[in-house]
């Protein structure tokens, strides 16, 4: 059986990774998944595959899935408010369905 859920995707600099995942832990996300990437926006072009001892500017893509869509939105809004005034990054929210809802 599939249950309605909400997926939030956060694209940010690695610099923020620890702070964002800490916030997710505290606000009660049941988990998150993170992949590393590159990207381009208004600032620096970030290239994952280039030698870079400074990995803090690399892009991480963090996604979390939640059954409670309103809560997910609140968390997303908080991240946007806390970090995305000063730092680079985007957030988007998509509807989804999940299997095995007891995991969330």
């Amino acid at each position: 059986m599939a249950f309605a859920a909400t997926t939030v995707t956060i694209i940010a600099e690695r610099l923020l990774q620890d702070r964002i995942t800490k916030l997710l832990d505290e606000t009660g996300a049941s988990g998150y998944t993170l992949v590393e990437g590159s990207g381009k926006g208004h600032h620096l072009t970030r290239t994952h595959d280039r030698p870079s001892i400074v990995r803090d500017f690399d892009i991480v893509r963090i996604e979390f899935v939640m059954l409670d869509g309103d809560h997910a939105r609140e968390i997303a809004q908080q991240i946007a408010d806390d970090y995305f005034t000063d730092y680079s990054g985007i957030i988007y929210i998509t509807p989804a369905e999940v299997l095995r809802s007891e995991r969330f």
Partner: protein
Amino acid sequence: MESLAYFAASFVTQLQSPMLAFLFGGFALAASGSKLAIPDAIYRFIIFMLLMSVGLHGGIEIRDSNLRELALPAFFAALIGCLIVLIGNFTLGRLPKVNRDDALATAGLFGAVSASTLAAAMVALDERGIAFEAWAPALYPFMDIPALILAIVLASMHKKKTAKGGGATITVRSIVVDSLRSSALSALLLGLVIGFLVQPQELYEGFYDLLFRGFLSILMLIMGMEAWSRLSELRQVAQWFVAYALISPIVHGLLAFGLGYIAHVMVGFSPGGVVLLAVIAASNSDISGPPTLRAGIPGANPSAFIGSSTSVGTPIALVVCIPLFIALAEIVFGV
């Protein structure tokens, strides 16, 4: 007259060193669109190996050296780090179309130190047979950390004055900690401590030192490729940054050479040590600096400070400053 000819000859000879050949090779590869890429993991490993090696060597040798001699050069290093930031603030920072945050971040980066440039200078001194104190590479943090602190403090003071306030508050302590935790300084300090405590002479010679020059040659290649590839970042940035990155390494280095000379006269600081002090002043930070500054001056555009340092400042430090200061030392100290 004669010494000028000698100076020129020394400079030109040094330009033919294998290390610079690899740097130029890197420019050429990137410029020609070559697909050759040294994997990121190898790059990070090379940095570790070089700094661990420098650290171990320093730690092993330091036992026999008089550490009190370190005091004056270390004080000068810190002074230079601060002066560089102040100079940057009052020159680059006052220019039209230059954002103050960008200027301070850039000056902080040029005040801070590049481990790679330091390693290249050590090899260059070796090749010319010029000795330096075992602890001289340990001057690195004494210049690095004050420069970063001052740049960030000035930026936040400036922000408070002009803007509505708010923003992240960065403590001096957190900047110091951040710098010491960077992969470059961690490796260097760990090497120093291990070298000092257990004196791993055999391990150092049979592994770390054995691979030192080879790895440095690859690092030079990478730095050349990076310098060229990041040129595009510069297009988005005011021309003044390019001018600053061209001139300031030489100015900073000469300033440090002068202070180093004073230390030579006063406490017998070695000619090689003076060159190293000048080179770390001329160098700009490629490892600890950028993330610390990004966190400390979030309003600064990374394109400005990374573009001008990687693409202009570092090549100038390697190609112009190292041979220049060595040639100068040969004249001044007659080594």
